[in-house]
């Protein structure tokens, strides 16, 4: 059976040249860029012929070949000639199919997407390639952009110099797509890309004209420096969300280990896991602080003027930190239910300040002590005070307490030294103030003052 009934045969010589071939092998040889006679041009076939000749073996395989519009698979049997140097090739099961159009379309689409991305000038053209609008992000193309802008409504080709213009009569988009464009004063090489819009006929709804350079733009030194500064200041917006997730996972896994959910574990390891978890939580808090810092230091930072109740906020803060306080045996004395001290400020920012103040008090007060939260309205301003029974602050420390990264000599507890700084910035952004009164051994009293409704009415912002 095998070896019989070949569709086509061919012969090669000792140099692996194809010296004679039947159709369709001959035309495949030519379409693949080969000659007849000439070296076997289809790589898979050449490899097979070489092997058969070198090994002196009859080989039989399926080969696959591809030219620019067809995919060919064929069964070939190759027999080294008995007394010659070459081989005879027998072909059966020839199967040719056109390359899927889809692949070509997908490749085009991808190229267009890339070019849209790197284009330094984009213009929207109407169906007759008349300029409708121009968008330009490059100084080199500014002059071109202006010409296009001024020539609103005219064919873009009349406004931009295209290479070899003298001969080009056509204004058909297919011919203009990919044309070289001369940009006076630019050392780079520019191409125009026309991306047709609309269905069913491409260009029915107009075109996107892109000017794309072959070379990347030169990067000015100061622009690079500026970009760096921006990068530094983007912790909150860009980096914090990215960092938060992995750290949260570290914490969650460490907690799993610590609580021995996955099985019993030696005590030390459980403790290590607790350390990991704590460190992760501190890291998370630090990221939050840095993100906040960035927000409050932004020039355009402002807080929303909500009507809030300081007593209610104090009760909420006490509720949130109640567990932590109880762990340390600290009693929080919050305003009684029913007490109300109205003020103007942004709800979540005020809560943030109170959590910071109360958190510090709980963290740095001796175990078994008391922390008071007092809200009161007095003389047109509302205030809330957080008082503790801790060591208190010297006047020097009080002066520094609100500085950025000030830790007041504390270390190793995971604080960032940003809490009070951020709190005061927030307070001031809401038209209020955050102050401290204290003496060593007397505990500390932090007071947040905020405007009231009357205040607001008297001096509208």
């Amino acid at each position, binding site marked *: *059976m*095998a*070896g019989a*009934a070949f569709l086509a045969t061919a012969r090669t010589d000792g140099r692996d040249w194809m010296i004679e071939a039947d159709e369709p092998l001959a035309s495949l040889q030519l379409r693949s860029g080969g000659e007849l006679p000439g070296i076997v041009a289809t790589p898979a076939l050449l490899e097979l012929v070489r*092997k*058969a000749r070198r*090994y*002196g*073996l*009859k*080989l*039989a*395989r*399926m080969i696959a070949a591809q030219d620019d519009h067809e995919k060919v*698979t064929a*069964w070939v*049997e190759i027999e080294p000639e008995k007394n010659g140097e070459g081989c005879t090739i027998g072909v*059966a*099961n020839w*199967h040719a199919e056109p390359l899927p159009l889809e692949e070509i379309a997908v490749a085009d689409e991808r190229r267009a997407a890339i070019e849209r991305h790197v284009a330094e000038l984009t213009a929207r053209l109407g169906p007759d390639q008349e300029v409708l609008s121009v968008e330009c992000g490059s100084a080199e193309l500014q002059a071109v952009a202006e010409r296009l802008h001024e020539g609103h409504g005219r064919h873009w080709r009349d406004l931009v110099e295209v290479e070899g213009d003298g001969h080009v009569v056509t204004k058909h988009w297919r011919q203009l797509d990919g044309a070289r464009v001369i940009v006076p004063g630019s050392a780079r090489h520019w191409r125009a890309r026309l991306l047709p819009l609309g269905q069913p006929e491409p260009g029915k709804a107009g075109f996107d004209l892109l000017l794309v350079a072959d070379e990347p733009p030169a990067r000015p030194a100061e622009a690079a420096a500026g970009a760096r500064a921006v990068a530094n200041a983007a912790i909150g917006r860009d980096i914090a969300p990215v960092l938060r997730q992995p750290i949260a996972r570290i914490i969650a896994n460490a907690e799993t280990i610590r609580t021995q959910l996955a099985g019993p574990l030696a005590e030390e390891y459980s403790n290590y896991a607790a350390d990991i978890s704590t460190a992760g939580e501190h890291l998370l808090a630090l990221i939050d602080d840095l993100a906040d810092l960035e927000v409050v230091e932004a020039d355009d930072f402002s807080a929303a003027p909500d009507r809030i109740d300081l007593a209610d906020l104090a009760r909420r803060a006490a509720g949130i930190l109640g567990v932590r306080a109880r762990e340390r045996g600290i009693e929080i004395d919050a305003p009684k239910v029913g007490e109300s001290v109205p003020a103007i400020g942004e709800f979540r920012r005020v809560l943030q300040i109170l959590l910071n103040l109360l958190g510090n008090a709980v963290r740095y007060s001796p175990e078994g002590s008391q922390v008071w939260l007092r809200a009161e309205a007095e003389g047109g301003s509302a205030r809330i005070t957080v008082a503790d029974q801790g060591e208190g602050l010297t006047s020097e420390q009080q002066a520094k307490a609100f500085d950025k990264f000030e830790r007041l000599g504390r270390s190793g507890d995971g604080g960032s030294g940003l809490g009070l700084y951020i709190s005061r910035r927030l307070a001031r952004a809401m038209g209020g103030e955050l102050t401290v009164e204290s003496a060593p051994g007397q505990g500390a009293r932090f007071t947040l003052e905020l405007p009231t409704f009357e205040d607001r009415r008297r001096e509208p912002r």
Partner: protein
Amino acid sequence: MMSATRTETSLESVETLLRDELAQGDAMISTATPILRHLLVNDDRALFSDEVVARVRAMTADAARQLLHAEAQAGQIADRASFLSEREDGLVEALVEEPAFLAHVHALSLEGTLALQLQARCSIDGVLTPLLQELVASSDDFVAGSAMAVIAAQARFIQDHRRMAMPLRELPGELFHKALLVLRSHGGARDESIVAAERALREGYDEAHGRLGLLTRLVMRLTRPAPGALDLGSAGLAVFSTALAMATGQERELTVVSFSERQLVRLALALRAAGLDQPSVEEQLLVLHPEVALPAGFDQLSAERAALLLASSPRHEA
């Protein structure tokens, strides 16, 4: 003086020899445990089961015997039995040193083992399958003849598998060539008979008659996408393996290895890349691995993405 030097030299060389031998022995001892542990607790028992290892050894020995037999015949050696037994072990050792040869024999022994398992478990015959039966009755003479030839080749394959034989004529061209090179380099002074043996073997070889060639040719001839050829239950393991390898561009050997337990992902991707829809993929997997489930979201994967994933695996080109 002279003799003293010679004694020293030979003493030295003896010591060197002993030292080398000792070092080799040490190396073997140090690797023995990891290898043994690997064989004992390997995750994928099917790939390295005692049976498969034994079969690979026996099949390699069978190939070596055929080579030596040809040599003995060409050299007109009277006592074939002792000629063979003297040289067999050495030649087996040399053949096993050829990774491509070893991988091929391994894949064949896996295929044979799996074929018999499927026969026992799901009554998928190793030789006569519904698809082949249908093709034999085809009005297309070529297809009918091809199918007959495949059935005959499969029957030989199963028998060879049971007998742990590795006929040289069934080797792909490259490996046949390699086996002859091994024989040549192993032959030493018996040059002439080896040259004659080689010539005879090369002349008798025709890849077109090998089982793998016949399978490829048959699958090529089926209409595309080959209906039934990618259905394990109907096509049988051999046609299925060839069709899947052709549809995905993977080596057939790699395709066969991917049927084992721990290669589920490769198999699933290959099936998807071959254009099978979700129910068909599941059906094939159910035959091979009744107990496992596809990873969640696998049904979202397109054939193109699956092909891309496969192509990006480093094993693809190997």
